[in-house]
């Protein structure tokens, strides 16, 4: 009896195995497949869901599960899940985070898929592609969006102080003067917010002054050059003038929030705030945007989120297909229409601007591509960027000269870069 049952069971199992083996070779692309797509939570989620829906419609056999994580946990969760072999199949990546993942061979190489699908890389801003280029000949992902920086300003506060709106020919001096004139301590209004912010802040002015953050060979920091110091002084001068809330005030209530509360006249930041500001009906009519002021030259740093895949995925072909789609033209148009973010795919900028018709000068973000430089992300960028508060706070508070602070910070970055 026992033996018979066993034989029967074995037979069934064998047939099952054979069936399982034969299916993929017959129709590999029709097998239902589920992949996961992880993003951090924010205003972009509805647009991401729309992109997922559009992709599923085109590929009925592939189901994409959109997963949201809060920003503070995003990187630690991703890192742990990748090390444990359970990372999501597709996920958002930032240029300052990609290096350990690429070096650790955790990312899916989609170079072949890009070639097979005939993706033209010329459709993406070169500066952003360069950010994700790990120098190993592989393409791990395509940018889904990009950002440049500009001056967001509150027209009502300019009117109240009788100051002319920023123009595209504003110099640093014009900016500093206006910030001073706009400040009204009694009313709790400041001309500008000057937090220690690399992406929206002092990196831009360092490049505007003709300096750079990291040397061309990527091995040393150059924050202690006269040009870079001038770029940092742009910010510490604003602080010394009293044109900005103190760092403590900006820690308690972040610059962006204070700007939305109508307490700050000028806030230097990226295109990624557009939708949030537009959605704030109370402040929307007062908001406009102008190019960053000119130092020795025009400059803004640029970066963007890339869609990348996990090397351990069970469905590499489907994931590659999804990644290309999610950074492609259809997806770009969905993002643009939602106004979620400035899409990286060229030719969809107008749609993005049209999504927020009351903001009439969004073109400045697109014009800025001409003079944009890639965000410096050499080496273990997350680590050395994380040291900025420690080293630069004394300079911002006026307790230490910018020269001294910049020199110490440069030495600290050099140490991190030397560790590789």
């Amino acid at each position, binding site marked *: 009896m026992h033996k018979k049952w066993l034989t029967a069971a074995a037979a069934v199992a064998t047939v099952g195995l054979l069936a399982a083996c034969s299916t993929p070779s017959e129709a590999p692309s029709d097998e239902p497949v589920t992949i996961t797509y992880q993003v951090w939570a924010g205003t972009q989620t509805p647009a991401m869901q729309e992109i997922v829906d559009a992709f599923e419609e085109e590929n009925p056999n592939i189901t994409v599960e959109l997963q949201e994580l809060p920003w*503070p946990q995003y*990187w*630690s969760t991703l*890192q*742990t899940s*990748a*090390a444990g072999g359970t990372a999501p199949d597709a996920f958002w990546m930032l240029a300052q985070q990609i290096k*350990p*993942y690429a*070096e*650790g*061979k*955790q990312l899916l190489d989609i170079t072949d898929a890009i070639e097979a699908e005939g993706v033209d890389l010329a459709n993406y801003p070169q500066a952003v592609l360069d950010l994700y280029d790990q120098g190993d000949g592989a393409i791990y992902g395509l940018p889904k969006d990009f950002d440049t920086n500009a001056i967001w300003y509150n027209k009502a506060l300019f009117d109240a102080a009788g100051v002319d709106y920023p123009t595209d020919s504003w110099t640093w001096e014009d900016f500093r003067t206006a910030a001073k004139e706009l400040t009204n301590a009694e009313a709790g209004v400041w001309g500008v917010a000057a*937090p*220690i*912010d690399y992406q929206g802040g002092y990196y831009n002015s360092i490049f505007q002054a003709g300096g750079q953050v990291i040397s061309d060979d990527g091995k040393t920091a150059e924050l202690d050059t006269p040009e870079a110091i001038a770029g940092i002084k742009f910010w510490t001068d604003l602080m010394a003038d009293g044109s900005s809330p103190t*760092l*403590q*005030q*900006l*820690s*308690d*209530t*972040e610059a962006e929030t204070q700007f939305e509360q109508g307490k700050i006249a000028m806030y230097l930041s990226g295109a990624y705030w557009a939708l949030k500001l537009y959605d704030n009906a109370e402040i929307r009519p007062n908001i406009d945007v102008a190019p960053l002021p000119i130092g020795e030259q025009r400059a803004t740093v640029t970066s963007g989120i890339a869609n990348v895949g996990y090397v351990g995925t069970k469905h590499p072909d489907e994931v590659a297909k999804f990644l290309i789609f999610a950074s492609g033209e259809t997806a770009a148009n969905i993002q643009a229409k939602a106004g979620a973010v400035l899409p990286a795919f060229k030719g969809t900028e107008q749609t993005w601007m049209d999504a927020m018709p009351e903001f009439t000068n969004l073109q400045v973000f697109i014009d800025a591509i001409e003079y944009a430089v890639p965000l410096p992300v050499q080496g*273990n960028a*997350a*680590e050395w960027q*994380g040291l900025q*508060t*420690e080293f630069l*706070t004394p300079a*911002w508070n006026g307790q230490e000269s910018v020269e001294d602070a910049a020199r110490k910070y440069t030495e600290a970055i050099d140490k991190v870069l030397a560790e590789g």
Partner: protein
Amino acid sequence: MSSSVVKPVRQVRRRTGFAARTDWWAYAMIAPAFIGLAALYLWPFLSTFLKSFMNVPVFGPGEFNGVDNYTKLIGDDAFWRALGNTALYTGIVLLGIPLAIVFAALIQQVSRGRAVYRVLFFLPVVTLPVAIGMVWRFILNGDFGLLNWVFSLVGIPGQYWVADDRFTIYAFAVVGIWMGLGVNLIILGAGLQNIPVELYEASSLDGANRVRQFFSITLPLLSPTIFFVTVLTTISALQMFDLVFIMLGSVNNTAIDGSKTIVYLFYEAAFVQFKQGFAATIAIVLLVIIMAVTALQFRLQKKWVIYD
């Protein structure tokens, strides 16, 4: 071979075989517990211990680098600052225990609705930490916080409690005490209920007042519970991490460098800087500190804890 030689051997063999079989059963019975323990506690501990002597990238194998991590940690100013912060925080949070004892004794006096008070004090324990962080950030905000407003009424100048590293540790400690009060109250309350009522009755016949009773009966008989609560509070205070994270709001907070605790350093090394070996070293050093402090507490308890 003669049978007379074989026999005893066989007997011995059977006996060991039988003995081994009973052993086997015993091991089998504890295996589920042991495997769980080994997989969830022993292995992570061993692996952390080994990693503390290694340079470990996020992905892939690491390589041994001797005591480099330890020398680097000891030479790191940030570590000593974090140690100081952690010690200060722990010291202040321990002041919450006398507070908890007083509250527990007061609640014990309440004849009706005792449970209501316990629930009220316990609420912070079951509240979402992020929500707690948001509420306290609002209370402690330098520009329009509730605390500074109250202070302004009595003429005390306001401060940036969660944005100035001269004050952040104290702010954490206040919230830490507030969060820990509920659990301590429950444990101490249970301890109070174990004290025989007859002792109070007898002492009041002898003319002892409430205060005298508290110091002569309640405190001594509660001392084992107080000791237990002290050990638990110390350990969890030494491991404090979440308050830094939720009360400073973001890593851009200008007070962050003066406010880090040991576990925050660990988090930063492991998850921001991708240095797992160095992070493991921090974890091991903290473990040693906690063991030393706990051992010291057990040594000292002989002087003040009274068991029946």
